[in-house]
């Protein structure tokens, strides 16, 4: 089926065809007046005496009209689409770890309604993804497939949306015959990983829409080997301050307290927030408590040699201090803005988990199991800048306190999200992207071939006109 990107151009070309025709007919030329010494032997032919307009060179007229039509057609962006099949559906089903439990059941129900008709026949394509995307053959899309998926449950791996987005163009090509393709993503949209997929998504071309079906995120409790005990108490160790942090931890539900890092630990706590350099003995005590099950949060100012070896961070500790240290992302729903300084050197240690990321994607906080407990390194001064004045401050500290717990959604795989992806994730962006907003070049483009034909016709027309002028001249 021939489709046109901008049909108005074809209409314009068709109208323009009338111009040479009209000129040809309107132009009233006198009949050819020529000498002929033997004119005395001619007989009068009255038809030639009147000033009539007769087509003098039909070939040129036809070529000129055809040229205009083809130019209009070429500008109309013609494309050949094999066969119309109505609207097809492409479902991107998130089977990542965030979909476990009732979320998985809901997602499967949504996919089933989207893909299976009343007769149980598949009406579209199915792509399932977690860390990678897998296209399910259409003949396998049956009610039984969804039953088996329900039994199998969701994956243990986090979802990589980029993988799903990258699969769209290839899968949409399979649906090329359709008039339009409705891409429907079924996900809890609980994690990051969008950005790498957005570029191919924007380049992807399919006539249709992109739909996001958000499945409610259901908190799932994992039975992990290093899950800490629920923190009950938090101790802030600071030589110069710590009041803000202590208060914030208290606001987050952790019973707070303050102590001097230079003095031996007198009280036991589930969480230790170390904001200044401790004495060697205190450092040893803290590490020992961490190995025993506590969570030790260390800021750059407190990372002494005694502690540094255990940190989920290697390399330098060059701290850049300015008034705009940036914002830390803890996940789609938590952003902490206004840090005064940040660590600009070093890199995460092996096995470290990113608990927060800077806007530019670098890790801002890392967590690593230490014995039965956990040690967290935060690359910013937790009481510097405007951090303590942020409404999210208590929640952020509480998130750091539980950084090693796998039940907590982690931060974005160290990648920041662009505003479009964030808007989608937060539910504030458009749920549907109209096809016209995407690059649309569906089917086999014919424009350049039509343009080539027009150029060929222009050359033939030029040659014929030149030859005619020579003969007349």
């Amino acid at each position, binding site marked *: 089926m021939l489709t046109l990107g901008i049909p108005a151009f074809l209409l314009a070309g068709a109208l323009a065809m009338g111009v040479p025709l009209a000129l040809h007919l309107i132009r009233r030329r006198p*009949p050819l007046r*020529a000498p*002929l*010494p033997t004119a005395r032997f*001619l*007989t009068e*032919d009255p*038809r*030639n005496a009147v000033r009539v307009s007769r087509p003098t060179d039909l070939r040129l007229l036809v070529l000129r009209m055809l040229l205009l039509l083809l130019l209009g057609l070429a500008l109309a962006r013609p494309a050949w689409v094999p066969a119309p099949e109505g609207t097809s559906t492409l479902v991107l089903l998130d089977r990542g770890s965030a979909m476990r439990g009732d979320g998985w059941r809901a997602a499967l129900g949504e996919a089933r309604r989207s893909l299976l008709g009343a007769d149980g026949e598949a009406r579209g394509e199915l792509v399932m993804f977690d860390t990678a995307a897998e296209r399910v053959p259409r003949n396998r899309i049956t009610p039984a497939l969804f039953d088996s998926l329900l039994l199998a449950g969701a994956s243990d791996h986090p979802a990589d949306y980029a993988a799903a987005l990258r699969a769209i163009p290839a899968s949409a090509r399979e649906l090329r015959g359709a008039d339009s393709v409705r891409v429907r993503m079924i996900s809890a949209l609980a994690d990051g990983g969008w950005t790498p997929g957005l570029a191919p998504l924007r380049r992807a071309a399919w006539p249709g829409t992109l739909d996001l079906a958000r499945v409610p995120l259901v908190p799932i409790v994992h039975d992990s080997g290093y899950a800490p005990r629920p923190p009950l108490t938090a101790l802030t160790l600071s030589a110069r301050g710590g009041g803000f942090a202590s208060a914030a931890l208290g606001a987050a539900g952790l019973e707070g307290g303050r102590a001097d890092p230079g003095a031996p630990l007198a009280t036991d706590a589930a969480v230790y927030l170390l904001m200044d350099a401790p004495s060697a003995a205190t450092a040893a005590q803290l590490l020992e408590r961490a190995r025993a099950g506590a969570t030790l949060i260390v800021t750059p100012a407190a990372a002494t040699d005694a502690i540094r070896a255990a940190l989920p961070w290697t390399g330098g500790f060059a701290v850049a201090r300015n008034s705009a240290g940036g914002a830390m992302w803890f996940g789609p729903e938590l952003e902490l803005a206004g840090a005064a300084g940040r660590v600009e050197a070093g890199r995460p240690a092996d096995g470290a988990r990113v608990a927060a990321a800077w806007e530019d994607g670098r890790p801002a906080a890392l967590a690593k199991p230490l014995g039965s407990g956990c040690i967290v390194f935060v690359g910013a001064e937790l009481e510097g800048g405007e951090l303590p004045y942020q409404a999210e401050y208590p929640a952020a500290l509480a998130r750091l306190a539980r950084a090693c717990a796998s039940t907590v959604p982690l931060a974005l795989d160290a990648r920041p999200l662009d505003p479009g992806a964030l808007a989608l994730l937060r539910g504030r962006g458009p749920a549907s992207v109209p096809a016209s907003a995407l690059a649309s070049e569906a089917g086999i483009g014919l424009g350049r071939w039509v343009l080539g034909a027009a150029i060929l016709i222009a050359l033939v027309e030029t040659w014929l006109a030149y030859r005619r002028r020579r003969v007349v001249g």
Partner: protein
Amino acid sequence: MSAASDFLPPRMLERLGGLDLIARTIVSGFQTGVHRSPHRGAGEDFAKHRDYQQGDDVRYLDWKLYARTDRLHVREFEERSNLQCWLVVDTSASMDYAEPEGVTKARYAAFLAAALAHLMLRSGDAVGLATSGGDAKLLLPPRSRRGHLHDLLLHLERMQPAGTGAMAGALDRVGGAMTRRGRVVLISDLLEDDGGDALVTSAGRLRARGDEVIVMRVLTPAESGERAPGAGLFFDPEKPGQETAATPDADAGYQRRVTAYYDGIADRLRERGVEYVPLTTAQPVEEALVAWANLRRGP
């Protein structure tokens, strides 16, 4: 004789440049050589012996042969003709007509006249030039001297077709200027208002007094009806005010009428012993000369 395909078409001759070179090229193609007189007598080139007859000039007796054979023979020589020839070229306005990518009839006539002059002067004839049409006059009296060809070619180059005029007047003037028997070659399209009556009469008069008269009719293929033009308003260049709306290529009677006109003139000329050579500007000039020569030799 050269094959017709070896001859240069007139439009190619035109590119050669001056008439002198064109005439030489035509003559070169016309391999039958100079015209030879049918008379054999006391010329310069020995032809053959024949038996002596009473009345023969004893100066031509071959005494050496008599000594060997004991019989009297006279020597015969090929005689240079030394005719008085007039080339009469039509320069009326109708001769200025040409077809696309062709030469005008006037130019074709000039080629023909130049080639004939070349041939005639080589055979010792005296050649003169006269024109008919708007500027009818006797341009050059017959001469056979060296350098006369140059004058002839110069006048032929300068001829400008214009005006109208009857051929008969030109032939009469030439006849009056001829002091002895000679040859008159008329090159024209023969488009006469009276249907050629006066022309035939004048040509017949010349023939009757013993002159050799040759009429070479020159037309373009369009005029002859071979390649008639399409629809239009046509006019005779000699009568530009009279236009005829016609479609010659769709008019079957056009060619028939043209043919009938010229056949009528040709018949009447032949009846009076005038040689008639129909030509078109599409023919190579050499081919025209060959056709004429063959015509004169007879079957």
